[in-house]
């Protein structure tokens, strides 16, 4: 039996209004938290075992504990730039239950002593941004945000900031640069945002789902939350299932279910007659798994053990009607398009890889190009300023490694088709050529 926390009331009509949200118990945890000691909230989050839901999976309580004490301006920033292909969980959360996020942010801001908070939402989420803005206004009117929150002498300002549609602004330091009004380029780390983030001040940066989980942790208690899921993957997780499945969508699960239970059980599996070819377990930047991996438990450690990652919890299923070459081209093209261009391996490596894959696709390559792709991916991984380069190199390298026969097969087929087309064209031109004396 899966506990539902984030999605417990998700389809309740009008949940996006403060009235319904409060009727369903909303803002009680914020009120409770504001009466607690700041460090005891951080402690509870640490005990809950909550890990960052944006993709990196860093323990949330630990991250919050890095924020230094002191009188300087501190910031809380919610990363709502949900841009990883295949990921759409934050969208549903913000659209249907914006107050859960706001409540989580009030608690988090209080816990680390931040009194300026931002929600950086991707530009394409117009509807969600409008819903959030309305919800923030409601929360302000109700005294949950603003000067002297709930009469407890704490000030909290919260802004909804719309991004301009760049994937890189979902990288936390790129997000900070964009929020400051600059070109969204990742910054060199260290310093980490916890020490020098927004406007050089200590900044806690968390994903929407992470922050939204906080009120639920306080509600059920950290121990109960930690008891859900499996070792090192506690609590519930929203997963977005897409691709060749019959029931795509967001599901809230306890981590530790198998891939098969999710893909076939929840999402209905591929269309009848089709079989899983391979699947991305954690967004398009995760190394792919094959159908042989379907019985792997879906949790942080098991996936890491299989040399891939849980990422943002976005499962993309590719069935056997597709060509791995096409998927590789699509994936690489996306990251090539989204590379900010700041560091060399990512800028040039994603561009080069894409060019090579396109040549493979069009039959102008040789199997030696596969070696070059592998070596280029190898040189991107770990050598870039941020992880965008790795986000292309990991899935592409995994596809080339796991499906090399299919790539080689495609190269040969496409080459032969090109040759046949060329010969046919020459045949068609033969009478003309003869006519002019050749």
């Amino acid at each position, binding site marked *: 039996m899966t506990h539902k926390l984030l999605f417990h009331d998700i389809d309740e009509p009008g949940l996006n209004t403060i009235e319904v949200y409060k009727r369903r118990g909303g803002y009680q945890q914020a009120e409770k938290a504001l009466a607690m000691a700041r460090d005891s909230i951080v402690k509870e989050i640490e005990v809950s075992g909550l890990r960052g839901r944006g993709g990196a999976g860093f323990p949330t309580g630990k991250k919050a504990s890095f924020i230094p004490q002191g009188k300087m301006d501190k910031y809380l920033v919610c990363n709502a730039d949900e841009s990883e292909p295949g990921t759409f969980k934050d969208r549903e959360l913000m659209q249907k239950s914006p107050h859960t996020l706001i409540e989580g942010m009030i608690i988090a801001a209080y816990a680390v002593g931040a009194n300026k908070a931002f929600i950086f939402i991707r530009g394409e989420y117009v509807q969600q941004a409008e819903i959030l803005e309305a919800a923030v206004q409601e929360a302000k009117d109700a005294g949950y945000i603003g000067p002297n929150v709930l009469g407890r002498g704490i000030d909290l300002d919260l802004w909804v900031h719309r991004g301009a549609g*760049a994937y890189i602004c979902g990288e936390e330091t790129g997000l900070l640069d964009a929020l400051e009004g600059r070109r969204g380029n990742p910054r060199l780390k260290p310093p980490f945002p916890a020490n020098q983030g927004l406007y050089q001040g200590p900044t806690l940066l968390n994903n929407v789902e992470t922050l939204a989980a906080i009120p639920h942790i306080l509600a059920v208690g950290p121990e109960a939350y930690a008891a859900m899921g499996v070792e090192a993957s506690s609590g519930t997780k929203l997963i977005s299932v897409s691709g060749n499945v019959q029931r795509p969508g967001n599901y809230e699960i306890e981590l530790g279910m198998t891939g098969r239970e999710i893909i076939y059980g929840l999402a209905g599996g591929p269309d009848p007659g089709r079989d899983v070819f391979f699947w991305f377990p954690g967004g398009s930047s995760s190394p792919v798994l094959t159908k042989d991996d379907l019985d792997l438990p879906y949790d942080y450690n098991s996936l890491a053990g299989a040399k891939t990652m849980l990422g943002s919890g976005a499962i993309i299923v590719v069935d056997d009607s597709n060509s791995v070459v096409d998927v590789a081209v699509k994936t690489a093209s996306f990251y090539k398009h989204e590379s900010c*261009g700041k560091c060399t391996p990512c800028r040039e490596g994603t561009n080069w890889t894409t060019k090579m894959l396109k040549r493979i696709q069009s039959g102008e390559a040789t199997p030696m190009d596969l070696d070059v792709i592998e070596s280029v991916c190898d040189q991107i991984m770990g050598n870039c300023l941020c992880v965008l380069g790795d986000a292309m190199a990991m899935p592409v390298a995994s596809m080339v490694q796991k499906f090399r026969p299919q790539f080689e097969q495609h190269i040969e087929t496409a080459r032969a088709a090109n040759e046949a087309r060329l010969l046919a064209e020459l045949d068609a031109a033969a009478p003309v050529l003869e006519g002019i004396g050749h």
Partner: protein
Amino acid sequence: MPRPEINEITFVVDGREVVAPAGTMLADAAKLGDVDIPVFCYEPKLGQPVGACRMCLVEVEGIPKLQTACSTPVRDGMVVNTETPRVKAAQESVVEFLLLNHPLDCPVCDKGGECPLQDISYGWGRGTSRTVEPKRHFEKPVELSPLIAIDRERCILCYRCVRFSQEVSEDYQLILHERGADTFVGTFDGHPYVAPFSGNIIELCPVGALTSQAYRFRARPWDIEQSGSVCTLCPGQCNVSYTVRDDRVMRVLSRQNDAVDDGWLCDRGRFAYQSSYVDDRVTEPLLRDGGVLRPVSWERALAEAARLLGKTPAGLGALAGGATSNEEGWLLRRLHADVLGSRDFDSRSGASGPAVSAGLLAALDTPEAQATVPDVEWAHSVLVLDSEPVDDMPILDLRIRKGVRRHGMRLAVATSRPSSLDSIAEQAVRFAPGAGEAFVCALDAAVGGIGDVAGLAAAAGADAAQVEALGRMLREAGEDVVIVWGERLTHGANPDNAARALLKVAGRLSLLDDHAGAGLLQVPSGANGRGLREIGLLPTAGPGYREPAAVGRSAQEIAQATIAGQITGLHLLHVDPVQSFPERGLWEQALHAGAVVAHAQFLTDGLREHANVVFPAEAGAEKEGTVTHPDGRLQRLRPAVARPDGARPTWQVLSQLIAAVGGQATALTSMMVTSEIAEAVPFYAGITHDEIGGFGVRWQEREAAAAFPAGETGPFALEDPRPAASPNGALRLGRFRSVWASPEVAHAPALKFLAPKQRAELNPDDAQERGIRHGQQVTVTATGEDGSAETIAAVAHLRAAAPRGSVFLESGLGAESVDVLDAALVHVNSDPARPA
């Protein structure tokens, strides 16, 4: 923020133990152990490293991922490997990645042969390429500005140039367009990148993407040699390296001297060399004959000059321009003071009115109170007083910006004309043009917390609350306060009072004590203003600030005396007063009245019309001698190229003139003149060219500094300062001189487009009252005491930060210069002949 203390640590790189200052970035620290780590984007001059190019990846033991050496500070006990297979693979890949889209046009690229990308490709690259893809294409080369061409195909996107524009010169013009592999450098909307320091990006570029339009295709690295010297176009005295090919200067590069220029140059310094190679340069002696200047032999010219100067029955006056070297100034002084017995000489460029007396000059220049250029960067707070660094001493502008941006220095600006530093200043205070003295008195009251701040501020035309706030800031920011003040503060009617007031403020802030890191830094109006002052080329001071037996005439008095017939001979060394002094009309009369002997590179207005003898002068790159930086650093000018055929060095001409008028010509070489100076100026004692060396030496740091005379430290009782003129319907006239207003700019083909046009800067409210709009043609009229009116045309330029009741016009522009107007108040009207 005071300089941090740096401890030394020991780390190991490639098996060698190296001692380095803690916190040094690995890329720099490794050099101390003779290990070269290749870099592209890293340039310490640009500030914080960005780690973008990934060329400098190295292995640090204990850290799993490769680290960028440019951004990893060394720590004690760190073990670094730069030659392991893993590092080698990463380096080879970065080179391979960079070359994917880089054209292999090295044989026709200006950078080929001096190109970091070429060197690193050879040194750290794989040597072969695995790519078969087509390269990125751009239209090329295109004009980034009239000075700089950009070839975007060659660009490796290290974005040093963008960081320079954003974080060093802060002109914010260069940006990156597009994203990823499509990224390219440009300006918003393709506007030309025109800024005072734009040329630095050419030198920063590690490939041939940014090239100098003036140098492009003129030479290859194996044709050229470099020759170090010092730029004498402004008091900044940046250290330069001339690129010479076939005895001709082809370009100017920075020769980094952190105590002077931080490795930057302004565009005037970088491109003005072209002015040495124009047709209208004076290259042989000229004599006025039948009303026209004609070439003559050296013998004839020297004899004629000696006749005009030596046999003069009445007085004799001499002026020296800012670019005059110490040696030239010294010989001019010897000729006039010691041989011809005249005391009427002045070296204050563009100064109207009397000079500050010797005792006060010594008090202002005393070693205890002297701030250095690096002090500006590290001070707690800096006050820029009556100076616009970007025009008066451009390189200082960058140093001030660096202090604010990187070291949290707190900046205050107190000027009449709005300053380009206003936007980064914590306090920006305006006072009426010419009311500097009253303003400093008000500031003194504010800093001291005594006296009538409101009354004094009103006299200065300043806002009392702002003056109070400025006083508070200077008092409370921290003990290291530097006041950067413009010489024009002492160009008023009562310069001694202005100097006293400044000394009072400095005393209150404890700047006159021997406290390193705090003090005064004067921005002289001439490039070698300080050197000429110290050798005694002033009416009020002898060598080493000695009180003269009698005070001589100041520049303005020399002009008046010439018109009155008391002076019959004028000797002009690297200066045309018609071109560069405030009272243009007065000087035209004076030059007309007297016989004129001049040393000049160009025939500017006054010389063309009035000079009797003109000796050709050397260009900067041809000159030998010494100059003294505003903070007391003696620097050496070394000739990089030969003089034009037929020209002689000016020190030699002066020496020959001394002989020709019957004096004892003691100097056979320029160096012998330097020795004479070292004997005459006690605090220069024993200084030699060897000691000055490549980076100069501050005399304050030598033992002889103890011989500096005691300055006037009296009670500084101030009379009531003169209040600013009451505008009363008219506007107070302020004058400024743009960095681009100089004969070198007018003559250098590359820079000509920057030569300024007259403009009238005024407050939008004042403009509205007069029905004047931005960009409109206006007339500015000054009415003299005798009722005569002078009018010049200008373009209205509205600036919100300009003080009410004032208008600012440019000097140094020839006949359209503000120097035509000899008045404190003017009327500005929209030009009826050219309505908006």
